[in-house]
């Protein structure tokens, strides 16, 4: 037990505390100057990061519920098999490659616009680039949907089949059985998947760097910028503090929800 504890303390807890502490440490001792500065300079980026993350999370939740739901309750066996085989692919693609794929897919002359123009759904004049917040949301969602689906489909498969069968037997269609019976029982896993995705999105540097040229952008970009160009660890760590705070709030909401349900029982 002792070596394990030492390793955790030395390798994880200490650096974390150090980075948190340096966010509040200036030339003349304790200060909130870094936090204030980070907020004044990068407030828009913080808001942008929150907006993009929430947008992506909503998209991830909708898509993963749809896919996992179909995998669990789908009636067409071959379609379920094909979907089960297909959906996992993005899991094995690194974020940086996902960013590269998005660039060539979503730019003004990218594959998406080309297909839309060729099929006559879009005129060449109105073609526009998606390499902004929309591109970020789509790329993050594309990358994280398989991960959350993998977790959620596992949780849904663990719900006894007789639970959804009982609902269907009593008059609920597949969709109702999914939303009233299966999803509520698998929801804790969905929350875990979404929180882990939020952490992933708030830590990725490559995707915002590749997709977004100007401001505002994700906090990670600004943290890297602050460190590489100014060697300013104080403000960078203060930005890191916002990331911790964001994930902490989500985790707290999740714990509140599960605790509320436990006490209800």
């Amino acid at each position, binding site marked *: 037990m002792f070596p394990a504890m030492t390793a955790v303390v030395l390798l994880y807890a200490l650096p974390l505390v150090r980075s948190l502490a340096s966010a509040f440490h200036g030339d003349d001792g304790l200060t909130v100057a870094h936090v204030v500065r980070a907020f004044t300079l990068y407030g828009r980026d913080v808001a942008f990061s929150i907006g993009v993350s929430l947008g992506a999370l909503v998209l991830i939740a909708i898509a993963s519920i749809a896919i996992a739901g179909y995998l669990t309750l789908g009636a067409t066996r071959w379609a379920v098999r094909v979907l089960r085989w297909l959906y996992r692919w993005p899991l094995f693609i690194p974020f940086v490659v996902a960013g590269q794929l998005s660039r060539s897919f979503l730019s003004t002359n990218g594959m998406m616009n080309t297909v839309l123009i060729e099929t006559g759904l879009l005129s060449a004049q109105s073609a526009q680039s998606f390499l902004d917040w929309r591109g970020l949301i789509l790329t993050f969602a594309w990358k994280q949907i398989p991960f959350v689906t993998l977790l959620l489909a596992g949780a849904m498969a663990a719900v*006894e089949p007789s639970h959804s069968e009982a*609902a269907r037997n009593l008059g609920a269609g597949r969709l109702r059985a999914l939303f009233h019976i299966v999803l509520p029982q698998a929801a804790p896993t969905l929350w875990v998947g979404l929180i882990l995705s939020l952490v992933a999105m708030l830590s990725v540097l490559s995707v915002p760097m590749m997709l977004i040229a100007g401001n505002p952008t994700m906090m990670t970009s600004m943290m890297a910028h602050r460190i590489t160009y100014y060697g300013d660890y104080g403000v960078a760590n203060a930005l890191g503090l916002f990331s911790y705070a964001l994930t902490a709030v989500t985790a707290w909401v999740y714990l509140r929800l599960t605790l509320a349900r436990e006490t209800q029982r």
Partner: protein
Amino acid sequence: MNALSLSEVTVDLGPRRILERINLVVTPGSFTCLLGPSGCGKTTLLRAIAGFTPLSSGDIRLGERSITELPPEKRHTAMVFQSYALWPHMNVGDNLAYPLKLRGIPKDERTQRVATMLERLALGGFEHRSVTQLSGGQRQRIALGRALIIDPPLLLLDEPLSNLDASIRRSLRGELRQLQKSLGLTTVMVTHDQEEALQMADQIVLMREGHIVQVAPPASLYQQPADLEAARFLGVDNTVACSPQDPSALAGAKTLGFRTREARVDVAPSVNALVRRGQVTECVYTGDGYQIGVTANDQTLFATARTPVEAGRFVTLQVPESALIPFGPDHRYMPSLNAQEHTA
């Protein structure tokens, strides 16, 4: 009109045939048991009626309406699952109210009907309990209540009592049967327990390897099982080759079957009985008497006695004619001469 009729129902699972051309008629208000050893296809048949197992061919009718092509939610059958399948994220009241909610019944009426149902199940005031806090017997009742609350035209029970202790099972058998009778509910129940089927059913459907072997009321099934294998499943644990000195009414039978409890070793000799003389090999106490193993003509037979019998003693085993079940050379049940005269 029949409540439920199955014609030529066939089910395949991949290359395996699970049910082969099942024909069955269930009359309104009756209690039918699907009985058979595990793997005989009885649960598959119940699931096919509920719509969870697609048919390869055949037709299922509820009243006059064919339900073969309908999804489970449109069939209006109500099923009680072996595991009860109560939803743990809903309390007792919500579990019971859910089918009513699906039917668009307003909240006040839902609450009222749930309370009435709980009273009927002797669980009044349980609305806000979590289903995870209930005992096995209580869960079983809630599962039954959830099925009954929609007044279904057909109630399907999948081994509903098999997860319960013996004493609760016995009392619930009676309760369930009474409830079914008072509501006049057409019911089909799957069970592998012959005692349960005999006690509860109006009609028993005996199944084996995807086929129906026999459909009969409990008494006929018990006394006249279709063949030797069915007889063994129904507790006929002794068989002997028929010999010329056996009761004359059984002439022509190849094999005679009887149950251990019908055979005695401690009664006075009588005419018109099967008699075998042999040596006692074992004597086991069974609670209400003794089970005696007797070796006669190199065959071990079992009988009962009120008092213990020493091993090694020679005894006469006797079975009254009325308790003998005759089988022909093809191992099928053969009506005795008396019964034939009776029916003629």
